[in-house]
């Protein structure tokens, strides 16, 4: 616009041709904009399609129930998916209460002072720490410092710390959206602050909190680097000790300290090997992993969508 005006003097009215040209430029940009927005979706579809083409032939019951093997055609992901499930269980048991508790404190209890400021800046910074650094922390502190070994417990704890910022931020957002009138009403009829939080604020914020926890867990499920760093083995041909025993007291936590492997590490191991057969295994393992994480994410998105619809304070 300005170029034209300068060339022909300020008083000259822009000609119709120029207006058309500017309009056309706008339409071209809209196409580009739509394309760059959709490129993510296209890549996602390409990823999925590629994994399906390469891996679906390997995906059968035996693949899910076999241990890894030197022969690609007999290898399976039994120890990997069991390991992933157990690690995520530990992560959920540690990460969810810790993150939700921190979120509640920061929204409902904390005074506006320097300590709160430090915690808030700190959470923001933790969210930006590369995941592999958490692996180094776990290697130096848990594996060798506390001696918890290269176990399911260490892995779950590491991933719990990793998803802590995600859970905290989601919890705070969910709690912030609970209207003040609910707290005031409960306080007015004599509830204590703890009762208000436990019986009213938290239940009202629960769907939002759950969304955050699910997104955090799906992130943990796909994490590879920190678990490799703590020294998770890539070839595991046994299952952890069973949680239920035949003798008293019938429950055993021995599995917490067993060695493990997880789905992304198994996939990584197979990708790193030369040969199409193992790559097909990697694709199949990747497909299982992708379906699991996408399913978790979709649950979270649907949960939030329904929550937004229902919420009419």
């Amino acid at each position: 616009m300005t170029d034209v005006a300068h060339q022909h003097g300020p008083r000259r009215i822009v000609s119709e041709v120029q207006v058309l040209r500017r309009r056309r430029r706008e339409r071209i940009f809209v196409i580009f904009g739509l394309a760059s927005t959709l490129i993510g979706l296209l890549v996602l579809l390409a990823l999925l399609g590629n994994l399906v083409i390469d891996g679906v032939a390997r995906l059968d019951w035996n693949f899910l129930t076999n241990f890894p093997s030197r022969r690609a055609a007999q290898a399976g992901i039994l120890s990997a998916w069991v390991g992933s499930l157990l690690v995520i269980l530990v992560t959920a048991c540690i990460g969810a209460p810790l993150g939700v508790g921190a979120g509640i404190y920061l929204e409902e209890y904390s005074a506006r002072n320097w300590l709160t400021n430090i915690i808030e800046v700190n959470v923001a910074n933790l969210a930006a720490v590369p995941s592999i650094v958490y692996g180094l922390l776990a290697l130096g502190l848990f594996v060798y410092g506390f001696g918890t070994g290269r176990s399911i417990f260490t892995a779950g704890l590491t991933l719990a710390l990793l998803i802590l910022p995600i859970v905290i931020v989601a919890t705070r957002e969910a709690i912030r959206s609970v209207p003040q009138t609910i707290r005031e009403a409960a306080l007015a009829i004599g509830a204590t602050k703890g009762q208000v939080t436990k019986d009213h604020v938290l239940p009202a914020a629960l769907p939002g909190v759950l969304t955050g926890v699910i997104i955090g867990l799906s992130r943990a499920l796909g994490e590879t680097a920190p678990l490799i760093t703590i020294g998770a083995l890539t070839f595991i041909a046994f299952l952890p000790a069973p949680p239920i025993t035949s003798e008293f007291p019938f429950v055993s936590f021995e599995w917490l300290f067993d060695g493990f492997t997880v789905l992304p590490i198994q996939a990584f191991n197979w990708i790193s090997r030369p040969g199409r057969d193992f790559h097909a295994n990697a694709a199949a393992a990747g497909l299982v992993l992708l379906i699991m994480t996408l399913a978790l994410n979709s649950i979270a998105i649907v949960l939030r969508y329904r929550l937004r619809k229902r919420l009419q304070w």
Partner: protein
Amino acid sequence: MASRLTATQRRWQRRRERIMEGVLFLCAASSVFVTIAIVVVLVWESAAFFAHVPIATFLTDTMWTPLFADPRYGILPLLCGTMLSTAVALCVAGPLGLTAAIYLSEFASAPVRESTKPVLELLSGVPTVVYGFFALLVVTPFLQTFVPNLPGFNILSAGIVIGIMIIPYVASLSEDAMRAVPNALRDGSLALGATRLETAFKVVLPSAISGVAAAFALGISRAVGETMVVAIAAGQQPNLTFDPREPAATITAYIVQVALGDLPHGGIGYQSIFAAGLTLLLMTLSFNVFAFWLRARFREAY
């Protein structure tokens, strides 16, 4: 219902309240402990490393071969690989992310905008190991059809895939920044006869530039810390090069490589991954501080 609490009950209730607040505070404080622990562990093990290797050597030597018979400890090749993959990623995510953000904030209808956000979110939920697979077995063969003599492992395809990975971050944060620009500015520009495109580039983008720059800084810090894609697709030999077509190792890829082997605890090889990790943390931290500063310094108050 009109029963009153006895004095004992009230005392118990107060105690319960205090305990609850204390427990919640500990939860919140745990995040600070995590930060402290990260810094202490990295600095502690790195200190042992720097007792063997002078910092000057670490920063200037051009070879990184800690596991060889003749060990050399120059971080430059790893730094170079990291910068290179990040640069390639930025060349992909920058234009695409920004175009997508401008489109979503200035042109897209509300239904389009509402339905793209979840898709972008899904994309950020894809495990990085799957992206690595994609880079090695799809992007590299594709690039090889028109880049002559491209080796099977190269920085280029890893960088491109990392770029695609960080588009959601860059696009969604930039869009937030541009949506925060008040409509009065847009209306003024449109009233003067500018098209929506001209308004977007000459009015909205400059007004939101601090937020957009912060989005880029965060995207960069993501790319710098990305591990699996480079470990899978870029090869793992440290290589002091500025050519993205060559294979090279990044800081993160080196850590993975060492962790996969069985290194004795306390050896110099073990300590070297902490020195590398400390370098990585300082890099990402400086980008984050830069982003924070940008937002604080150039924030337009509307």
